[in-house]
């Protein structure tokens, strides 16, 4: 579908919008993960570099990240309303369900974008504000409007949008970015494909119906399972890499090794299954669903380990490495 079709779509307003509808417009689940990873960057940067940020400013910077994430989500929902109304999973979202008019979602997204970047600039520095603006544009424009409907590599390249938050948190404290910050970026970047492709194995018919070229639609389920395993083989050791730069201590080392091994095991189970194939066994779909759920837990626990080490004094350097 062309971009003109998408932006011209008008959906009838069927019910008055509630506060919940506007919260849904901001994709709160994604927002929580974004805020959590930004917080990890913010906490780790203070501990590693010794530079501290006023707690009020840290709170406002975190709020700015949350608003920025919500803004990008609203812009995404504005643009994707046509395909959201086609897919069962997304048909109850505020715009396709007729609660929120599309132009209202766009206005909300644009205003929140400006407010979030301005707040970040006031609370921290121009670099963090610039990175926040870049991440909003990356998701709201580059991924949503250019990549998503054009290439099966959409979520690979688009994954960078979700990888920015820890770098933004780091930059908010130090005014610069270091190897450690970009390592956290890389972990989220390489985590995104196996995470989304596990979901797309379950929902590929919906994507096909909506005309979104997700990998299982364009290259088939077997190729997607191969790619999931390949990315996980790369991700598992990458997830443990912060231990070698001193960013991760003993707790992080244990968590990243155990979770990395579990991620590999679950990805291999999906790889050996027929998940996503026509007439796939229910057990296979369960394996793909299990991998999708675990991938969220993986990222959450990895960054929770960093927060525990750098924010709650649990950091013990790994002997012989730091």
């Amino acid at each position: 579908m062309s971009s003109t079709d998408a932006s011209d779509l008008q959906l009838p307003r069927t019910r008055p919008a509630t506060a919940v509808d506007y919260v849904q417009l901001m994709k709160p689940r994604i927002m929580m993960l974004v805020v959590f990873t930004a917080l990890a960057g913010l906490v780790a940067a203070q501990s590693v570099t010794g530079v501290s940020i006023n707690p009020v400013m840290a709170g406002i910077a975190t709020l700015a990240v949350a608003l920025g994430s919500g803004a990008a989500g609203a812009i995404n929902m504005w643009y994707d309303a046509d395909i959201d109304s086609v897919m069962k999973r997304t048909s109850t979202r505020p715009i396709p369900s007729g609660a929120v008019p599309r132009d209202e979602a766009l206005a909300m997204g644009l205003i929140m974008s400006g407010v979030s970047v301005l707040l970040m600039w006031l609370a921290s520095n121009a670099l963090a504000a610039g990175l926040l603006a870049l991440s909003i544009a990356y998701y709201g424009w580059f991924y949503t409007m250019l990549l998503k409907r054009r290439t099966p590599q959409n979520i690979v390249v688009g994954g960078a949008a979700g990888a920015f938050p820890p770098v933004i948190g780091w930059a908010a404290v130090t005014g610069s970015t270091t190897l450690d910050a970009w390592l956290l970026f890389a972990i989220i970047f390489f985590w995104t494909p196996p995470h989304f492709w596990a979901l797309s194995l379950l929902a590929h018919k919906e994507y096909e119906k909506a005309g979104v070229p997700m990998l299982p639609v364009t290259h088939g389920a077997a190729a997607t399972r191969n790619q999931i395993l390949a990315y996980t083989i790369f991700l598992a050791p990458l997830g443990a890499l912060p231990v070698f730069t001193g960013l991760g201590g003993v707790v992080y080392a244990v968590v990243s090794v155990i979770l990395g091994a579990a991620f590999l095991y679950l990805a291999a189970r999906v790889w050996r299954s027929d998940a996503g194939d026509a007439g796939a066994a229910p057990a296979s779909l369960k394996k793909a669903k299990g991998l999708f759920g675990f991938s969220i837990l993986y990222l959450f626990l990895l960054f929770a380990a960093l927060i525990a080490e750098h924010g709650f004094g649990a950091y013990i350097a790994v002997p012989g490495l730091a």
Partner: protein
Amino acid sequence: MSDDRPTPPDLDDEARKAQKRRNLWLALALVAFVVLVIVTTMVRLGGGVPERM
């Protein structure tokens, strides 16, 4: 002279209440933004703010 202004659409009670709620939330958001900017400015400028007043 004729009045060319568009007539507002008829809203039922539920829609009118929802519109009022939205307006209230918008006003609160605006106030919150102003407060945040003031707090940010005061914290950043530190002790310099009371001295100037």
